[in-house]
């Protein structure tokens, strides 16, 4: 008997079926690259019989632009705190009410009612961290808890300094060093900020990402950078330490929110609830090496993270940490001008 379909067609049909697997549902996560623990995803897939697809992005701006353009097919996105208000105001997020979910009780008090999402009506914590100073202490043994390391560098460090190429992080750090507040539009202060940055730049070697290998190879001796990378750099070079600028340093948190035009709303909500459980949150941190904002997750974390000074901010420096807000368009315009002048 001749079959009613040909072989290639059958093959295509089988591939199509296997790509959705036999899972009951689907979930499309739009997240930063190299940021999602595959173990966490497997666990969720097995627990809820859902097939998860992850797509990467590299910056808040590119994620925002892509989702705004529509037709993306994503269910969940992970914006940073200083972008969350833009996402909410632009009407891109679904009010999924994580505050009424079962696992919400595990969210740490500090993150249960943040400015960027009052009452946590849209988003749940994913990871958080700080913008601090990484120093190779075999090159410089002085005080590293100051932004002077890169703005007024000691002789030993000159020419061996990297600065993260992130406009908002760098300018807010310099503003706080000179006694202002992030997102300020005070021109007198900003003028000093510009002069300080322009004067300091000849002492820098680079403004680049991917610094872990360079600390391991001792190409770099200091950097303004993020704490998780500092942790990973210390694993490869035991002389590396992470400092919290006492003049003030930026904190950030990325949170998971459901998109308004999500196709798999129920699964997306399940995922939000899932990652608020301490055991699962610990999986997130074990991969990218940042803290997560879920109480009780510490005990499930890898041993080397439990007392890491990069992850647990020492008590004396807690007060100097400030969460970055969304800066006004005027502020952004001023900062872009400074940033362009800095790199001309």
């Amino acid at each position, binding site marked *: 008997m001749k079959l009613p379909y040909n072989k290639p067609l059958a093959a295509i049909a089988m591939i199509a079926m296997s790509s959705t697997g036999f899972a009951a549902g689907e979930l499309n996560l739009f997240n930063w690259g190299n940021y999602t623990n595959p173990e966490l995803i497997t666990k969720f897939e097995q627990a809820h019989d859902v097939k998860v697809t992850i797509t990467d992005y590299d910056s808040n*701006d590119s994620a925002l632009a892509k989702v705004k353009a529509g037709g993306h097919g994503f269910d969940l996105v992970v914006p940073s705190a200083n972008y969350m208000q833009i996402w909410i105001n632009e009407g891109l997020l679904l009010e999924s009410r994580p505050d009424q979910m079962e696992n919400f009780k595990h969210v740490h008090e500090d993150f249960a009612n943040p400015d960027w999402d009052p009452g946590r009506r849209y988003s749940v914590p994913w990871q958080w961290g700080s913008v601090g100073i990484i120093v190779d202490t075999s090159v410089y043994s002085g005080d590293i808890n100051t932004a002077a390391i890169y703005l007024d560098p000691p002789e030993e460090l000159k*020419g061996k300094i990297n600065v993260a190429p992130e406009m908002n992080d760098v300018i807010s750090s310099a503003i706080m060093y000179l006694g202002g507040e992030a997102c300020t539009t005070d021109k007198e202060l900003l003028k000093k900020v510009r002069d300080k940055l322009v004067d300091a730049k000849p002492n820098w070697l680079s403004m680049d990402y991917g610094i872990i290998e360079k600390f391991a190879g001792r190409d770099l001796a200091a950097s303004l950078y993020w704490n998780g990378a500092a942790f990973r750099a210390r694993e490869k070079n035991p002389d590396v330490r992470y400092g919290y600028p006492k003049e003030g340093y930026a904190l950030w948190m990325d949170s998971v929110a459901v998109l308004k035009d999500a196709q798999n709303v129920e699964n997306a909500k399940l995922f939000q609830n899932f990652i608020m459980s301490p055991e699962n949150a610990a999986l997130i941190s074990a991969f990218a090496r940042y803290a997560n904002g879920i109480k009780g997750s510490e005990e499930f974390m890898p041993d080397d993270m439990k007392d890491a000074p990069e992850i647990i901010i020492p008590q004396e420096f807690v007060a100097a940490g400030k969460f970055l807000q969304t800066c006004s*368009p005027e502020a952004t315009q001023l900062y*872009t001008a400074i940033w362009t002048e800095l790199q001309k």
Partner: protein
Amino acid sequence: MTTEQYQLSATEVKVQQQQAKRNWLLCTPALIILGVAASGPLLVMFYYSFLTPGNYGGVEFEFSSQGWFKVFFNKDIFTDSVGIADAHLSIFWRSIRLSTMTTLVCLIIGFPTAYFIATRPQKDRNFWLFMVTIPFWTNLLIRTFAIMEVIRNKGIINNVLTSIDIIDAPIQMLYTDAAILVGMTYVYLPLMILPLYASMEKLDFNLIEAGYDLYATRFRVLKQVIIPLVKPGVVAGSILVFIPSLGAFVTPRVLGGGKRMMLGNLIELQFGQGRNWPLGAALSITLLFIVMVALLFYVKNAQKSGLKYD
């Protein structure tokens, strides 16, 4: 030079016309793709460059000439005085300078290489061409990171030099303009060699011999026989290298350490963290304009020299 005049018969003219028509027809799909894919986005860019920036990226559909104004002029953020946008100008200048240098270095290295390949026996040439194209098998980013591995402080060159005691401390090669130049030359060199080879392959080597027979020195043969004959290849290669260098984004970022912007990075900033799409669009069109001017210059130059030696 006189050529015999030949009158075409009516049928021949007709056949030729039909052929021309068919050729145009066959070209249509390519022309449509090029037309839509190239001019469509350009028109959008041009339109966007006259709009008002949206508060958080994107554009407001409201006319504004600020985008273009800011390409060339700079209202000082502190004193409100208007001046030339020296930051933009110096970034443009750096891009043009580095691209020109890349083109020259590619030409200096590529010319003898192409000549070497063209003078091999027919059966060996494919092997050498094949060797030239090998780098294309690997992604640009990976090749760039490979260079970084070679020239960094703990990289191959510095390790070898220190281990045989030529130097005590590593030489800082990474994150310099020289590193960008090396990287761009490496990346774009095949684009110079291939067109050069194409024109050298057609070179009539009897002419070179004739030159020697007439007691020309080697240098004179090169200058007055070879170079004029392969000029189209030189022009094509230079264009192919210069244009992508001007918009290069990855190589300067990775090897230059991102401390000094190139045009590509400046444009990216406006669409990303700077949230000023109209300015980004205006800068992109300015880049396009520079490329066009460079092209016209080359073409004109090529025509002039072509006439001289005909």
